[in-house]
C-alpha cells in the first residue's frame, strides 16, 4: 500500500499498549476501539490486529497488491477509483485500486483494516503509534506521502475480482453507529470535591467540545464548576475517559494518548463502552453527562465484547467459505 497523498493524522493503532505504564509509557491505541475491532471482525481477523486510524482530510492510498479491506467508524465518503464504496463491509480491492476519502460526513475517525498481515514490528508489546516518543506503529509517526506499507503474505484474489476494480462482499454489520449525545459516567474519586451545585450542573448542563480536542484529550467549555476545598492532589494514575477538573473550573476528558498519571481532581469517568461514541465527536459538538452504575457499565463492556466475538466467529467462517467458493 502506498500513500499518494498525506492525511492530517493517519496512524497505525491496535487495542493499546499495556504493561509499561509504570515507565511512563502511555497506552495509545485506537480512539474508537469498537469501530477498530469491528473492522477486524468483519474480515474475520483477530480483534487486536493493527489497523489504520484515519482523520479528515485523509490519506489517499494506492494498493500495489490486491487485498480485502474493511472500513468502519466515521463516514468520510470512501471511494475506490472514484466509485463510492460502503462502510462496515469487506471489499476486495484490485491491484492499482486507489482508496480516497471525499468528504467528512459523520464522525471524526475512520478505521481501515486489511486482510493481509501488515509488515510491522511491535514496540513494547503493541503496534500502536506513540507519537510523543516516535515509537510503535509505522516508524513511530503518522503516515506521509510515499510511505509504502508492506504485507507479510500475498493473497491471490484475481479470480474473485474478474478484472473489476473492487468487489463488495455480501455480509455486513448493521446499525453500528451510535451518535447519542448523552455520555454515561461513573463518579470519580474526587467527585465529592465538587459543590452540590457543581454536581448538579455537571449532570444537567450541556458541555461543548472545544477546538482543543485531539487524541490526548477533549477540553470542554461549559459552566464553571466550583470545588468546596483547596486540597492539592498528588499525581496518581489516570485513564482513557477520566474527566479532570482544571484549575479554571472547566473540564477535560482524557483520551487514548493520555498521560499515565495526573494531578487534577478526577471528578468523573466516562464508561468504557461510551468512549467509542465520544471518540467520534468533533469540536463544537455538545454532550451531556448521565450518571450510571458500575453494574451497568460492566454489562455494556461484556455485551460489546460478546457481540464482537460472535460476529468475528461468523465472519471468519463466511470468509473461508466465500474465498473457497470463489478462488
Amino acid at each position, binding site marked *: 500500500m502506498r500513500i499518494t497523498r498525506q492525511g492530517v493524522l493517519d496512524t497505525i493503532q491496535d487495542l493499546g499498549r499495556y504493561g509499561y505504564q*509504570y515507565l*511512563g509509557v502511555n497506552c495509545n491505541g485506537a480512539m474508537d476501539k469498537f469501530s477498530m475491532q469491528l473492522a477486524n471482525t468483519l474480515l474475520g481477523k483477530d480483534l487486536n490486529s493493527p489497523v489504520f486510524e484515519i482523520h479528515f482530510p485523509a490519506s489517499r492510498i494506492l494498493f500495489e497488491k490486491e487485498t480485502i479491506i474493511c472500513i468502519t467508524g466515521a463516514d468520510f465518503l470512501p471511494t475506490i477509483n472514484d466509485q463510492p464504496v460502503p462502510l462496515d463491509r469487506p471489499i476486495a480491492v484490485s491491484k492499482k485500486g486507489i482508496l480516497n476519502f471525499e468528504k467528512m460526513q459523520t464522525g471524526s475517525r475512520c478505521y481501515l483494516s486489511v486482510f493481509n498481515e501488515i509488515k510491522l514490528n511491535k514496540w513494547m508489546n503493541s503496534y500502536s503509534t506513540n507519537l510523543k516518543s516516535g515509537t510503535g506503529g509505522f516508524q513511530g509517526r503518522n503516515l506521509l506521502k510515499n510511505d509504502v506499507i508492506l504485507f507479510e503474505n500475498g493473497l491471490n484474489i484475481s479470480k474473485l475480482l474478474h478484472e473489476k476494480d473492487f468487489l463488495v462482499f455480501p455480509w455486513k454489520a448493521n446499525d453500528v453507529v451510535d451518535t447519542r449525545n448523552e455520555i454515561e459516567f461513573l463518579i470519580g474519586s474526587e467527585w465529592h470535591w465538587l459543590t452540590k451545585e457543581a454536581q448538579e450542573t455537571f449532570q444537567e448542563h450541556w458541555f461543548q467540545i472545544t477546538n482543543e480536542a485531539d487524541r490526548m484529550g477533549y477540553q470542554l467549555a461549559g459552566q464553571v464548576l466550583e470545588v468546596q476545598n483547596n486540597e492539592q492532589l*498528588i499525581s*496518581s*494514575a489516570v485513564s482513557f475517559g477520566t474527566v479532570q477538573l482544571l484549575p479554571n473550573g472547566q473540564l477535560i476528558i482524557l483520551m487514548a494518548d493520555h498521560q499515565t498519571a495526573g494531578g487534577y481532581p478526577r471528578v468523573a469517568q466516562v464508561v468504557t463502552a461510551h468512549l467509542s461514541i465520544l471518540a467520534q465527536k468533533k469540536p463544537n459538538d455538545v454532550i451531556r453527562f448521565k450518571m450510571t452504575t458500575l453494574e451497568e*457499565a460492566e454489562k455494556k463492556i461484556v455485551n460489546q465484547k460478546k457481540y464482537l466475538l460472535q460476529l468475528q466467529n461468523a465472519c471468519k467462517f463466511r470468509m473461508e467459505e466465500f474465498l473457497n467458493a470463489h478462488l
Partner: protein
Amino acid sequence: MNPYQPYSIFPLGDSALTIDFGNFISEDINKKVLQLFHHLKTVADKNIIDLVPAYSSLTVYYDVAFLHHPEKTAFESITEILERLLSQRLDLPQHQINRFEIPVCYSKKFAIDIDHLSQQNHLSTDEVIQIHTSKTYKVYMLGFLPGFTYMGEVDPRISIPRKPTPVKLPSGAVGIAGMQTGIYPLESPGGWQIIGRTPTKVFRKENKCPVLFYPGDEVKFYSISEDEFENYQARRT
C-alpha cells in the same frame, strides 16, 4: 495482620481500581507502593492487565469481560483477589535498586530558569548547584512522558513552584517543580523550572528497554562544564 494496611480501594472507572495509601508524598509509603507493585507483578494474575504505581497509590487495570460473573461485579471479584493477595505476608526478595550518578551542565546556556530560582530563593547560582548536587534523590514514580521521572525530595531552599505556562524544552532538561526534580526524556513542552541539562540519554527508543530509570531507583547529580557536556555528546555519537 495485613502488611499493607492501612489503604483504601476505589474504582477508577469500570476497568481499573486504585489502591490508595493517602494523599501525601512519603518515602515509606512509596516503598509500600513499590513493594506491592512488585508483589502483584510476580503473581502475574491473568485478570490483571496493567499496574501503575504512583507516589502513594497503585492502580490496577483488569479485564472486565474475563472476570464477568452473574452474581458480582468484576470490581468486586478483582477486589477479593487483591484483598487475598494483600493479606499474604510474602518474603519477597528486595527489589533491585539501581544507583546512578548523572552529569548535569548547569551553565546558563541550558539553565534557563536558574537566575529566576536564585533570585526568588535568595541564593547564588553556585549555591543552587551545590544544593541540587548534594543529595541523592529517590525515583518515586514515572509519568507524563515515557521515561519521565518524578524524583524527590529537593532541599526546601531550592524548591520553587512550576511555571504557569509550559515552554518548549530539549531532551535532557533538568528541572525542579515544588519539592520534585526530574529530567525531560524527550523534547517536549514542560512547566518545570529548568536549572540544567544532562548529556545522558534517559530514553533510548532503539533499546529493548528504552527507559533508564525505574521506580525506586536512586539518582545523584554532579556538575559538568559546557566543554564536558559537548564531549559527552560527541562520545555518544
